[in-house]
């Protein structure tokens, strides 16, 4: 498969170094430096540059260039670079599919034929966990390049995927799949030679594909034939990567099944534990570590069998490892499956197994007490009966969305318990390995204990079926575990002498419990309790306690709607946190101040507080708290119209939350939702719709599809769809909002009135007046029952009623509805409000339909005098003008009629309503006669 390139890649630009102004520096050794410096200039890869230029031209609206070709493939984009060469995304026009092309540099066409044949053997491998190789070719033009065309796998390599902190089971499963791929290749007689996480790709759906089989060997042969010096300390002499490379290969041996096995087990170990078992600093360090055993035992929650399977595969002596990959994979699979059976394979060579077991148990058997029971306090909290009880509690609830949320909550708690348990073990191990006790680990233990107590209280509330609805979201907001493990954890309490420490602990515990009941919505008398705790903290001189109590007081005031009072509390909390030198609490208080200011409509004030908060952010700040601050700030920015700044911050918030809390977390969903709001405010409707949609699925997955929070999302989606001109889609979205609201608030709740009014609007817009009437009448009934007949919220409802009546030919009823709306508007805001647009226009139309020119004119004039008349809804303005023109004519005001009609024509053309333009123009022409 030896092919020519199509077009030559671009030329190199400019000479390297010419002596430009050496007199500038006055340094006598400059010329030497220059020479040395010049040597360091990066190689100009003309291919890379050419592909980049192509891509840029396409994306930046510049004149397109001819695509760079390699063989029959058109290179589109560079998607990565590995140790051997770059990878490009390319298009195969012959089969019309995307392929990935890996380039290997430095190839000369005088390479042995046997190598090419071997390379082609790779192309015959076929297994779902091996990347398919379509072909291998040589590009003869200079510099000659070997390229491999293979299946394009969109996704991450395992190296990067592992950074996203997947669960150990997901990691294990991924490696089992990769192992299967390896086993299959071995069965076909192909060895990998350089297995490591970077050589395993993972698609979004979890499918695993191993890449780069045998290429390491080919490349190494290349290097040997080129007599290139090696690049960097990482490469072994026969291909492979230091750290993963089997010891026998380091000593000059060849690739074998056993050496692949070694690399596989090292990689799996690294995936499960985060560290290479034997390091990779240098060959000598590696060899020494190999003799000592893995640097760090696998985390305790991973079954011991797994560790033993891997340990055998990593044995220094190749003949002691597993007989083949297939067996290894089988053993690994069953070990992961936690089947506690005694495997015959584990029994054989028991001496070896015991020897390796020494490594697995820890660095030094004498020194480490058993930490395997360190998580018992956590596990006891979440034993199977309790888990069942919690689940039943949810399933027995009357509200549908609570029942639906049962599995979500249980799995969220499962994950939380895992994190707590792992933390417990880690603290124990830190203590035993380092022999370190003292304030740091003690503080961590106390911290974890308080988390466990909090979890216990949370679970007890659920068991008593208290505040179930609020606990769905609260399950995601249990106090995070990670902060307990920070080595610099130093609570203010340690500054107190012992006798006060106890009382401070009590105050803290009470504050904690109070905060939890606030979050659960079960806190009558909470404000009083908070005041008591404030007094207690003041007496103790415990500033952080004062700060927390004041924060809570602010929260309680906010809930009761006493916003200015809340501001005072939050401000005091902020100052208390400052004097207590507690940056975290200060950040919390500031965030509350920002939200509070927004609620008061003082957006500039909100930004002021955000600036204060930002000044307190340091490298130790909890990123989640920082994200909350930025989130609150963005809301103010949106209201101020600074949507770009808001989006900037919100994207950071989204990234932080996705990373630290997961994509299916209510906070992450909220961030996504707010991005939609910002985009909507900026007028970017399509983007807003996409964001709302993304937030909807996140909300659904984290809270359940009928959770009250979903109602907001459906509302906004409907808004956007309506403005994008899809009233039917909007109606369906609003229907879903209504369904949720009915489920959570009850069918007669006043808040449904607004949703129903929107539904009426959508139905009218979609030319379905019967349905619109049904909605409108229900809305009216609810609103009048809740607020009486003069409430401004009724204006929209009555207007839609009116429109529906008119559409059905019931002019009297329509007129009555519009006039009722006008009455309310006059009473509520003196008639000057854009909400009057609808009713006035409707009343004018109704009057016209009834032949009452005077009434038509009266209403029309009022309409025209409304501020924002023509800018608000140009189509409606045009309609109103048209009606008015005809009324003027009927009233004998011919010249005014003509002028008004001409204005109507202008407005109609502006909105592109050509039919109406024609109608009015014809009418005008008839007048001239």
């Amino acid at each position, binding site marked *: 498969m030896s092919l020519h390139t199509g077009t030559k890649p*671009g030329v*190199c*630009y*400019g*000479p*390297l*170094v*010419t002596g*430009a*102004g050496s007199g*500038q*520096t006055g*340094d006598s*050794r*400059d010329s*030497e*430096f*220059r*020479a*040395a*410096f*010049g*040597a*360091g*200039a*990066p*190689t*100009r890869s003309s291919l*890379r*540059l050419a592909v*980049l*230029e192509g*891509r*840029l*031209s396409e*994306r*930046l*609206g*510049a*004149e*397109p*260039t001819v695509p760079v070709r390699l063989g029959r493939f058109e290179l589109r984009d*560079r998607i*990565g*670079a*590995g*140790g051997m*060469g770059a990878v490009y995304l390319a298009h195969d026009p012959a089969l019309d599919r995307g392929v990935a092309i890996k380039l290997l*540099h430095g190839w000369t066409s005088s390479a042995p034929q046997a190598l090419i044949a071997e390379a082609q053997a790779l192309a015959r491998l076929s297994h779902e966990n091996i990347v398919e190789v379509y072909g291998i070719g040589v590009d003869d033009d200079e510099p000659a390049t070997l390229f491999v065309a293979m299946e394009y796998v969109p996704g991450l390599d395992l190296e990067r995927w592992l950074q996203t902190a997947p669960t150990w089971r997901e990691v294990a499963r991924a490696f089992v799949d990769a192992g299967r791929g390896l086993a299959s290749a071995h069965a076909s007689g192909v060895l990998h030679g350089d297995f490591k996480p970077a050589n395993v790709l993972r698609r979004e759906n979890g499918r695993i594909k191993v890449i780069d089989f045998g290429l390491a060997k080919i490349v190494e042969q290349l290097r040997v034939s080129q007599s*290139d*010096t090696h*690049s*960097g300390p990482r490469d072994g002499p026969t291909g492979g990567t230091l750290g993963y490379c089997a010891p026998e290969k380091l000593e000059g041996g060849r690739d074998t099944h056993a050496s692949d096995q070694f690399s596989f087990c090292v990689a799996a170990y690294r995936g499960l534990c985060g560290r290479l078992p034997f390091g990779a600093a240098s060959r000598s360090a590696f060899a020494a570590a190999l003799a000592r055993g893995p640097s760090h035992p696998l985390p305790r929650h991973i079954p011991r069998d797994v560790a033993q399977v891997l340990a055998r595969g990593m044995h220094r002596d190749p003949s002691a490892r597993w007989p083949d990959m297939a067996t290894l994979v089988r053993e690994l699979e069953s070990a992961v499956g936690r089947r506690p059976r005694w495997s015959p394979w584990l029994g054989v060579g028991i001496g070896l197994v015991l020897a390796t077991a020494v490594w697995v148990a820890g660095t030094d058997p004498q020194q480490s007490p058993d930490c395997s029971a360190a998580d018992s306090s956590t596990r006891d909290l979440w034993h199977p009966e309790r888990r069942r009880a919690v689940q039943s509690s949810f399933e027995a609830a009357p509200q549908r969305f609570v029942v639906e949320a049962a599995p979500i909550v249980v799995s969220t708690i499962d994950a939380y318990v895992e994190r707590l348990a792992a933390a417990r073990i880690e603290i124990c191990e830190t203590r035993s390995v380092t022999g370190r006790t003292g304030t740091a680990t003690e503080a961590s233990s106390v911290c974890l204990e308080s988390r466990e107590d909090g979890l216990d209280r949370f679970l007890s509330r659920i068991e008593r079926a208290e505040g179930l609805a609020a606990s769905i979201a609260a399950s995601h907001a249990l106090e995070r575990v990670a902060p307990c493990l920070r080595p610099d954890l130093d609570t203010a309490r340690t500054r107190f002498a012992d006798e006060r420490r106890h009382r401070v602990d009590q105050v803290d515990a009470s504050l904690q419990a109070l905060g939890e009941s606030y979050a659960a919505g079960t806190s009558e008398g909470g404000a009083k309790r908070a005041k008591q705790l404030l007094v207690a903290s003041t007496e103790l001189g415990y500033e952080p306690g004062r700060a927390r109590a004041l924060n809570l007081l602010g929260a309680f005031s906010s809930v009761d709607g006493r916003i200015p009072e809340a501001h005072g509390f939050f401000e005091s909390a902020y100052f208390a946190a400052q004097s207590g030198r507690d940056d975290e609490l200060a950040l919390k208080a500031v965030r509350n101040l920002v939200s509070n200011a927004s609620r008061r409509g003082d957006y500039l004030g909100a930004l002021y507080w955000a600036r204060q908060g930002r000044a307190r*952010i*340091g*490298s130790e*700040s909890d*990123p989640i708290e*920082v994200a909350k601050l930025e989130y609150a700030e963005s809301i103010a920015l949106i209201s101020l119209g600074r949507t770009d700044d808001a989006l900037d911050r919100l994207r950071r918030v989204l990234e932080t939350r996705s990373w630290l809390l997961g994509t299916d977390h209510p906070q992450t969903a909220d961030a996504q939702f707010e991005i939609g709001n910002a985009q909507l405010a900026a007028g970017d409707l399509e983007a807003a719709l996409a964001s709302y949609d993304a937030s909807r699925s996140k909300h659904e997955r984290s809270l359940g599809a009928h959770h009250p929070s979903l109602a907001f999302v459906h509302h906004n989606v409907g808004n956007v769809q309506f403005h994008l001109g899809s009233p039917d889609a909007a109606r369906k979205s609003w229907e879903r909002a209504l369904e949720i609201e009915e489920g959570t608030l009850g069918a007669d709740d006043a808040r449904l009135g607004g949703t129903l009014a929107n539904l009426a609007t959508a139905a009218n817009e979609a030319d379905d007046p019967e349905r619109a009437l049904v909605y409108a009448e229900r809305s009216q009934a609810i609103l009048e029952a809740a607020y009486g007949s003069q409430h401004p919220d009724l204006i929209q409802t009555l207007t839609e009623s009116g429109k529906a009546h008119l559409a059905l030919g019931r002019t009297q009823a329509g007129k009555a509805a519009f006039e009722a709306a006008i009455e309310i508007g006059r009473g509520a805001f003196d008639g000057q409000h854009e909400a009057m647009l609808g009713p006035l226009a409707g009343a004018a139309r109704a009057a016209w339909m009834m032949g009452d020119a005077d009434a038509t004119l009266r209403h029309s004039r009022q309409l025209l005098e409304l501020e924002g008349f023509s800018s608000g809804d140009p189509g409606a303005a045009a309609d109103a003008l048209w009606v008015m023109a005809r009324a003027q004519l009927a009233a004998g005001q011919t010249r005014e009629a003509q002028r008004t009609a001409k204005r109507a024509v202008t407005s109609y053309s502006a909105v592109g309503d050509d039919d109406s333009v024609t109608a009015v123009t014809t009418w005008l022409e008839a007048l001239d006669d």
Partner: protein
Amino acid sequence: MIEREDDFVLLTSWREGDRSAGGRLIKRYSGLLLRFFRTKVGEDADDLVQQTFVACTERKDAIQNPASFRAYLLAIARGLLVEHFRRKSRHHKRFDALETSVADLEPTPSQHLAKNEERRLMGEALRRIPLELQVALELYYWEGMAGPELAAALDLPEGTVRTRLRRGRQLVRERLAELGAPADEPLGGSSH
């Protein structure tokens, strides 16, 4: 690099929608930008090149007395580079380009296959000096920029540029010595 005065004219045309003008600018300057970014951000270089061009076309500024188009472009590129690192700094550490080197920011070096040891060492040394000094040295030695042009690209007075170059050279020598550059290398390990 042959200086072309009409590059600013091309830019204006591109901003107004002239696609062929854009194509020519891309062909002329992609290489420069790629070289600039590649030694500092590895894989993200392609994206940053794109962003630089985008920033160029989106600006509405009347270009104020620029030394050269190259300098103008590089000044934009520098700004994007700093912003790129700021964003990557996950824990809000204060990022100061004068204090931080690429090696601090990118602990795993990008996988350039250096053809020889000398090039590799120089590359390593450059990555370990503060970013602003690295930029100054590269522009001076690899792109042959100097005088007012270099000052414009770095957005500094010429005197400061000379100081930066001096300090950069000194630090590179020190790093090379630390990295164990061979004894017969022209720069040597002796103090300057």
